[in-house]
């Protein structure tokens, strides 16, 4: 029969455990290492911004903002980015949900296909859109011509007269939106797919046992539950649309006062040798982007992280 341990046995065991404890190296070098790498990248970004800011002044920015072409460009930028973001979210939320929740044949191939706008060079996206709209015919008519026919008929139906302005997509404002949407939507889809992947399907399953069909479970449970992901996807799509240049250049052109957005304004200002103006427009873009992205972070409200660095 074994003897019950006495207090003395327990103490000596505890002591032997204490003597075996090894000294663990400090975590500080690791944290400093992380902070150092982060700082290097941050320095590069801040360096570029400071260099730009030094090259221009508030007076230059104010003067640039008084330019009617830049005012038009700013207006079209805000409008096109907003519409491209809304369209991206309308496509990304159901697509992300489909990819995250369902299995179907060819899913891996389709999933890879969705990344094409992210991988392809921006100029190629623009060129592809141009070829699609002008060289790809449906019943002998190009998509561009179909768009003109459909819009003209809708306009005539509601107003009783033919449109007295130029109708079409290519080299017009709709081309800017489509070019921005083509790229920004891919980023939004990827974000929404990750969001739904990380959300447990249990809430939706419970909703289905309570009487919901899949559609109701999606709209009433999954979508409201994914609001942070939707916000992030919208911010990413908006930022991507704001910075889009290559596809717009090819598909919408850079006609002053017509198809000009802030990113192409920078290009136009450089092309006429007005570097100060180009930098001033860039600073306006930085200010708008920072304001919107900061607002999104505020609405999100998450601080993130687990540990305080003391």
């Amino acid at each position, binding site marked *: 029969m074994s003897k019950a341990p006495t207090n003395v046995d327990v103490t000596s065991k505890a002591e032997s455990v204490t003597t075996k404890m090894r000294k663990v190296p400090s975590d500080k070098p690791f944290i400093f290492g992380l902070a150092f790498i982060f700082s290097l990248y941050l320095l590069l970004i801040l360096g570029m911004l400071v260099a730009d800011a030094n090259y221009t002044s508030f007076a230059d920015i104010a003067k640039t903002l008084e330019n009617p072409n830049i005012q038009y460009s700013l207006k079209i930028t805000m409008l096109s980015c907003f519409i491209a973001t809304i369209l991206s979210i309308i496509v990304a939320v159901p697509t992300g949900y489909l990819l995250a929740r369902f299995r179907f044949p060819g899913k891996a191939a389709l999933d890879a296909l969705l990344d094409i706008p992210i991988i392809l060079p921006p100029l190629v996206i623009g060129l592809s859109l141009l070829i699609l709209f002008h060289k790809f015919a449906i019943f002998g008519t190009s998509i561009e011509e179909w768009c003109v026919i459909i819009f003209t008929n809708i306009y005539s139906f509601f107003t009783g007269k033919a449109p007295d302005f130029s109708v079409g997509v290519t080299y017009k404002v709709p081309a800017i939106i489509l070019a921005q949407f083509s790229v920004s939507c891919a980023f939004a889809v990827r974000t929404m797919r990750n969001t739904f992947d990380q959300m*447990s399907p*249990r*809430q939706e*399953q*419970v*909703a*289905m*046992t*309570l*009487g*919901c*069909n899949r559609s*109701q479970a999606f709209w*009433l*449970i999954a979508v*409201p*539950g994914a*609001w942070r992901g939707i916000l992030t996807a919208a911010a990413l799509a908006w930022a991507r649309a704001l910075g889009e240049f290559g596809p717009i250049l090819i598909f919408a052109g850079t006609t002053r006062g017509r198809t000009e957005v802030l990113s192409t304004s920078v290009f136009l200002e450089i092309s006429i040798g007005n570097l100060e103006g180009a930098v001033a427009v860039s600073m306006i873009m930085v200010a708008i982007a920072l304001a919107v992205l900061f607002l999104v972070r505020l609405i999100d409200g998450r601080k993130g992280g687990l540990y305080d660095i003391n």
Partner: protein
Amino acid sequence: MISIKDCTIQAGNFKITDINMQIPTGSYGILMGKTGSGKTTILEALCGLRKVSAGTISINGQDITKKRPAERNIGFLPQDIALFEHMSVYEHIAFGMRIQKWDKKVIDDRVHELAEQLQIKHLLERKPAGLSGGEKQRTAMGRALAVRPQVLCLDEPLSTLDDDTHEDVINLIKAVTQENEVTTLHITHRKSEASLLGDHFFELCEGRIIQHQEAFV
């Protein structure tokens, strides 16, 4: 009566075959078994959340094997509770009734009746983020019972609760399931929980269901 006859359920590479189980109407069935033995898979199949590749499941004589979850009238309380973060306690309890288009006055009365039974009347306006573990369990229980289901499925509903809350909730589950006259299938690991609540005891062992006369370990 819950009746599961010769059921085969496949979940990825995992498969359970020849599942047979009967729980008389109004009784409280307890399903026990080792972790990973497939208890939750059986519960999901009963709720219609997992397909049954062979056999039949019926409730009160009606074959529900091919019915969708929404058509089965089964209340489900999953292990992770799965509350809807954007809804208040009131909205949780009212959710199923609103989906099934019950009359507004009836919904309001039923929410208050259940909140009274579950002792969460003071929490009706709160969101899940501000609730304790026990309060979340009660909310999920109210949500599952609100539409007056024929069957209630509880997947280890008390596993995350501390001992004091655990005992309170056991008493509450017993009272509420009796008041609502619902046939219950409850998964648990705890013998004490099983013996306090159960009328019929089942063990899932190596893919087979064994029925016992009393709670076991």
